[in-house]
């Protein structure tokens, strides 16, 4: 029963935090939610048996279930990786991490075409050759790898001239 209450408290704290405006509080909320998720997995394995699962224990009645522990290990690491990504997201916004900022005032509200990196295959100057390339690619499923390289080489030739 205690683990159920702990999970409930963690979830309550998490939900309160991630309903706030600041990205940092949202991240802290999700850290708590991650803890709650992991405790649910451990509780699913049954908290009455609490021995370390090592070797081939004689009396299996007191040894904890190793499977949910493996699940929790995987879940912790996944949650950790998403958390550090979110932390980076928190600092790449405007000058602070407020998530309710009106979206477009300092940038162009429309999707700015110059944000798209210039294509190496500048479409205008490649005429039919690129059309064959793309049609070839998507229509004939069983293209051999070899023909990829040969299409690749004229691409390469073209690039060579371009930037060197």
């Amino acid at each position, binding site marked *: *029963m*205690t*683990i159920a209450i702990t*999970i*409930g408290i*963690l*979830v*309550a*704290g*998490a*939900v*309160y935090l*991630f*309903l706030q405006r600041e990205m*940092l509080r949202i991240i802290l909320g999700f850290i708590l939610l991650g*803890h*709650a998720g*992991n*405790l*649910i997995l*451990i*509780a*699913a*394995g*049954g908290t*009455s*048996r*609490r021995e370390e*699962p*090592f*070797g*081939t224990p004689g009396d*299996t009645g007191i*040894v*904890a*279930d*190793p499977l949910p*522990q*493996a*699940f929790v*290990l*995987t879940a*912790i*690491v996944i949650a*950790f*990786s*998403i*958390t*550090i*990504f979110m*932390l*980076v997201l928190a*600092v790449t*916004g405007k*000058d*602070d991490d407020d998530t*309710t900022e009106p979206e477009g005032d300092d940038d162009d509200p429309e999707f700015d075409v*110059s944000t798209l990196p210039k294509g190496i295959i500048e479409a205008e100057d490649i005429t039919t050759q690129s059309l064959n390339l793309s049609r070839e690619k998507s229509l004939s499923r069983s293209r051999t790898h070899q023909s990829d390289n040969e299409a690749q080489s004229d691409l390469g030739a073209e690039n060579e001239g*371009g*930037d060197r």
Partner: protein
Amino acid sequence: MILTSVVISLVTCVLAPLLTRAAGRNAGWFLAIPLFAAAAVLVTATGGDFTRPVEQRVAWMPTLDVSFALRLDGLSLVFALLVLVMGGLILAYSARYLGRDGKHGTFYLLMTAFAASMLVLVMTDDLVVLFVAWEATTLCSFFLIGRSGPGAREPAIRTLLVTAAGGLLLLAAVATMAIGTGTTQISDVLTDSIWRDDPAFTATVAVLLAGAAFTKSAQFPFQAWLPDSMVAITPVSAYLHAAAMVKAGIYLLLRFSPPLAGETLWTVLLVTSGLVTALLGAAGALRRFDLKELLAYSTISQLGLLVVMIGVGTEASLKAAVIHTIAHALFKSALFMLIGVIDHQAGTRDMRELKHLRTRMPVTFTALVLGAASMAGLPPLLGFVSKEGMFAAFLEVHGPVWFPVLLVAGTATTSALTLAYSARIVLGAFAGKEEPASAGTREAHEAPAAFWAVPALGAASGLVLGVLPFLLDSLVAPAATATAGTPVDVHLALWHGLNPELAVSAVVIAVGTGLVLARRPVEVFMLPRGIPVSGLAIVDRTRQGIIRLGAVVGNWTGSTSPSRHLGIPAVCLAIIAVAGISTVGELPSVVGNPSRPEDWLLLILVAAGVASAVYSHTRYTAIVVTGIIGFAMTLWYFILGAADVALTQLLVEILTVCVLVLVLRRLPNKFPRESRKKRLGAGLVAVAAGTATTIGVWALTGRREMSEAAEYFMTQGEEATGGANLVNTILVDFRALDTLGEVTVLGVAGIAIAALLRSRAPSAIRSAKLDTGTPIYDSLENSVFLRVTTRVLGPLIIVLSLYLLLRGHQEPGGGFISALVGGAGFALLYLAAPSDAAARIRWPYLGLIGAGFLVAAGTGFMGYLEGSFLTPLHTEVLGVKLTSPLLFDVGVYLGVLGVMLAAFNLLGRHDEHSDPTHPSHDAEDEEHDAFLALDDMGDDRMDRTIEDEVTSR
């Protein structure tokens, strides 16, 4: 055989653009020929005897048992000839109507496509193909209207919306009939017994079909789109909006008359709507000055009459409907084309302007008179014959006594009004005839022969068939039989002797001529009497209303700020818990005692941590408190018997706090105060979600014995893998796929962070506002203590992490824990560095992540030596037991280390990394720039020129 006619029409459709490129506007002549040929093919296919239907079938979708089936019976033949002959004539006409220059490729393509789809519509014997052809005509009309200039776009959209709505009603009818009768073949559907057994089915299908036909044939209340679509050029109006497309609705009603004719609902629907439309159309026509619009309203009125005839449903009225369809097609398309000729020659089609024009167009005049007379129903024209048939049918209708009276009265007034506006057309078009030939007035000369030939032919045929109507007997009889369901014999004649319908006609003609003579006062009287609300306004207002409603519904989803989007799932969780409580019956009893006294201690610690995290106002305290909760969780895992998990949780906690601190210095210090109302709302949702989860955990866990999988691990786990640490063996042996996925997730997080920081520079570091005098300002001296200890601790940590890596299989340890320890070592190195520049760790973190992927996936593929992906391999090398899971763990080690380096390098250092122009790039970025030379060179050059110009903003 009949399939060839459809194929011919499709071929013309393909030929159209090529011919137009070759012959320009004259392509019309060449395209007319195949249509006439198709008509000839149809006639020969029936071998002269029109009563025996000819069938042909091609499979299309056997799973839905839908096939491209064609069936030519009397009714289909009449309409098919109508579509093909009229189509041919109008194409020939447009060869002269269209301007000499200008691109007509799309026009001819769309017109021939329309002809083909109409042909399929009237000849198909499959409900689904009927719907397909129906929608194809809608699309052709949308494009044909839309291509005549920007002004025609709104009408095209309105027309498409109304006709598409009708199309969807037809779709519903098709689906209901297909499911109800179990087949999509029209001939079987019509003879199915369900029409009589299931009144609900019949009623729904009747309403749906009527709705679809009313939108297509512009009946009340959907009549607004027809005048609106007159913006299209005359051939389009003549063909689509007079002869063919609007007849599709009539064809649908005729085709489904056999089962529905007896239905009172069907009769009431059709008769009321027909009568209202007829009267409205006729009244509307009297108020129009533009000849083409006048014809549009007259078309609505004539179609109304047709709908009334079909609604009555007796043999005589259906026969009259077929004849009137033919008559209407002839005179209405002829009139439209003649108006086109006048418009072309005189430059206008508005009566008020035509008044001041001397029109020397004798042939057009006579053709116009013939057409108008036929429309008015004057003998000896075909119009009179069909009107006589109508009155005869209505007079002998049985049923309540007032029914025939209402019918005859309504149609008689309409006919009188028709006479009035027919005269209005003739007088309006040629009022200027008497004008003296003064210098000022412009002359409108007769059109060249090729131009007026086609409409004159149409008008003349009205006269010829009027005088000799029996020519049509062999055509009308099978059509009437197909619609009435019982054999009908037809003897058309101009003169049936003295009978009541002749009297009615006489009265109608008398009243009509009276209206014509008094046309000035009638015009003055009719002008203000327009219908109060215009159909177009309704369509537009509903469209704007839907768009406004859409905007409101769109706003429910709020903006991209996550709080609203995250709150809804939390509320839903509470709802699921409530649903769970109500549905789950009794639960199995709890096994053993899940909680122990020392748990309460940890519970209180976690509760205190959460409470302070919620109430913290500065980011610094929030981070510290989350660290405490993390350590409480580690204790929880220890007492629950999960050593590996506790160790991982501890290390993850340390590194998260490190990254949090790196991030902290770029964020403001305090959290702004939130309004009380918002905090209360969030609190309520939080408590609801919390209690829901507690109930869930209490109810759904701890109530069963040990699972078989756990039993297997504990009994055979060790000797199957040779590892004592069961949790680690699960991770790298039994469920290695999960761990492979996990490593990829972690590695990709590193790549994603690098991608993010390359796409957008992080916000600037906030200075700590330390005055330079204080001893803690100079980071070099302050870090001396840490630097000394790192020299000792560094190698120790590396040895510890390698030791943890190697013993993972037997003791708590393994890939993750060892790598996190290694990561903590690098964190120490970073903290001990005197300045940000020196803190850079020169290892290529993306390379490390990639290596981690390669090793992990490579071990997986090595597993195929033993039969399957990721199977563990055991080999003895110099007495040391080497297993593939160990190699797998090395892959994990590399991946995790790569991510840690990425996080510290990218986040931890001063801003010069993110500023592209800053000189002190490091190796990692040179490699970047070489790669992106292509990309930046283009971007920067363009940006620099534009930036200078724009910076003045």
